[in-house]
């Protein structure tokens, strides 16, 4: 059993994502999977979990090896709030039960990566603010937050991580580029072994704007 690189992807599935945005996200994720599958190190170590959040938060796919991963159907409700805080709470629970730490008898995983995608802002802002310190205790090697579309708010995301990016449009070209970049970041995560805990992110594509 080789060491795993756990990758958590949190996807906003609130009503505003219905239609083209969510379809584009799916296309983007599929492209990311296929790109990662062509990288031998990723193929041998990357494990992916997808958590979706709207009014409900759910583990769409628990931590699954890349080779076995199949993207399930993503259902988006007509409307409703965006429970980003609850999603992060669920994330912490999942990390605690899925990510393996080293013990004398067991090989530990690599430090996990987190990618969060939203097109709005947390509706459960209190929960969100409280859970941030818990997320930080989970030792993610990197947390990348992406605010997609005109209505996405970056301020709450900046509390979670200093790696905040925006996408101007929510079409398939933008998401494809974004997930391609996610896949590059995962590959770098795969190689950053040892001395430093911070992953140096690859330069984002033009469609992805850096928020300073």
């Amino acid at each position, binding site marked *: *059993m*080789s*060491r795993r690189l756990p990758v958590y992807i949190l996807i906003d599935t609130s009503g505003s994502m219905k239609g083209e945005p969510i379809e584009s996200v799916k296309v983007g994720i*599929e492209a990311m*999977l*296929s790109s990662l*599958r*062509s*990288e*031998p*190190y990723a*193929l*041998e*170590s990357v494990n992916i979990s997808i958590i979706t959040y709207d009014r409900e938060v759910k583990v769409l796919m628990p931590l699954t090896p*890349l*080779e*076995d*991963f*199949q993207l399930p159907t993503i259902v988006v409700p007509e409307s409703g709030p965006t429970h980003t805080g609850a999603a992060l709470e669920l994330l912490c629970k999942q990390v605690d039960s899925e990510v393996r*730490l*080293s*013990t*004398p*008898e*067991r*090989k*530990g*995983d*690599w*430090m996990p990566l987190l990618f969060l995608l939203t097109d709005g802002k947390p509706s459960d802002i209190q929960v969100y603010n409280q859970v941030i310190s818990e997320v930080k205790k989970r*030792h993610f090697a990197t947390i990348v937050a992406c605010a997609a579309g005109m209505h996405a708010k970056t301020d709450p995301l900046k509390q979670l991580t200093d790696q905040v990016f925006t996408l101007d449009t929510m079409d398939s070209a933008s998401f494809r580029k974004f997930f391609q970049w996610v896949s590059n970041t995962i590959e770098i995560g*795969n*190689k*950053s*072994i*040892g*001395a*430093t805990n911070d992953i140096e992110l690859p330069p984002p594509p033009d469609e992805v704007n850096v928020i300073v």
Partner: protein
Amino acid sequence: MELNKEIKDLLSNNILINCSDEEVIDFLTWRIKKDWQEYDKERMDKAVVIKNKIDALPISFPNGTVGKEYHASFSLPDDLVEDYWLEDVEAIGLKDEVNPTDNSCNLSGVPTEAGSYTFRLCYKYKGWVRGMANLERKFTIAINPDPKTLWKNIPTPTDIEYYQPDSECGYVKVESKNGQPQKDIVVASQRGRSHAHEGNPRDDHYRVEYLEQSGWYIMAVADGAGSAKYSRKGSSLACDAAVDHCKQFFADEKKVKDFEEYITVYNAEGNDEYKKLLGDYIYQLVGNAAFKGYKAIETEAKSHENVPMKLYSTTLLLSVCKKFDFGWFVGSFWVGDGAMCIYDKERQYIKLLGTPDGGEFAGQTRFLTMPEIFTDQASFYGRLRFSIEQDFTALMLMTDGVSDPMFETDANLNKVEMWDALYENISKEVELSDDNAESQYQLLKWLDFWSQGNHDDRTIAILY
């Protein structure tokens, strides 16, 4: 159209009086259309019900891998489906076989090409008759490439800073004395696949020596951290500075004479006073050697535009030993991961010369370049070891590129059967006989072994 006379009579006699042929035909058309619509709706509803049931069945197909036997099986309930088959699976290199007795289906074969494939489960539902459309359910699976075929081997550009060759090996031959074969050292270091794939340099390093005059062996291996930019220089500076320091120590005849005398007395009497004295020597010898390694890196970092030392992060495993009449004296220093161990096959004896430094997550370890290694006295002493040992099969030093795939966990490092397995594994390909300098190339070749997910640089030094 000529209406059948009997029908005409029948109709005329009963309901339709004095109707023309055209009227009857019109009536029948009207009637049939209505019935057909009702019939069509009913059978469509039935098909939808069955389709929903089939779509809801927990049928899934796992992903496959190129060149690897694929197998999946499922069955459809025979109260819903008369006949079914898979379409478009040939493109994946798979074949479906339906067993009519239990309505089960086997999908198998060996996929030939990687990619994402969509295929269809087509079926004739219960009540289907010729002319009706088949129903279907779509599935998508991924065929993964065989990771072995994806690794590239790009040579490291020779014009980079601190270039070092992608692989290296060596042999220290010690001639027999008084007809007694003497232990030799074989060593090899190979760039890991993860580095080769990117054309990045090897970060591991080693240095081994035998000092003819004093009869001491010195061995050092170091693993530069993959994520640290100049770690290849860190590992070579650590090995060189540490070994040079030991050589210097052993060049001082008086010092060596005293040291060896203490060893002899300690062996004979084993008292604490001599143990303490020897501890001081070990501190001076391997402890200071490690510190010299640290200093060498510090100096280099300063002269290199004053970059942080952590860019040179490296582990260090260092061992000095000598054979006496009463056995071997072995001293060592260890910081970081990897393994360093005395192994005797016959006695089924192992002795780890320290403990590997690990963290909660993979790849977390400690490095020589961390100042706390030297400032925390208690833990520093813990890294120094010395002991007197009976003759042994081998003394092995290796980086985690070898120890990780071979031992997997720290607990396994303490199991003699794991060392048996490692030694046997090596012996199959490497002829560890006295004075066999060829074995260095065999060892280098052995280092290329395949282990999924373990593609770090690999270095091993064996005194045997």
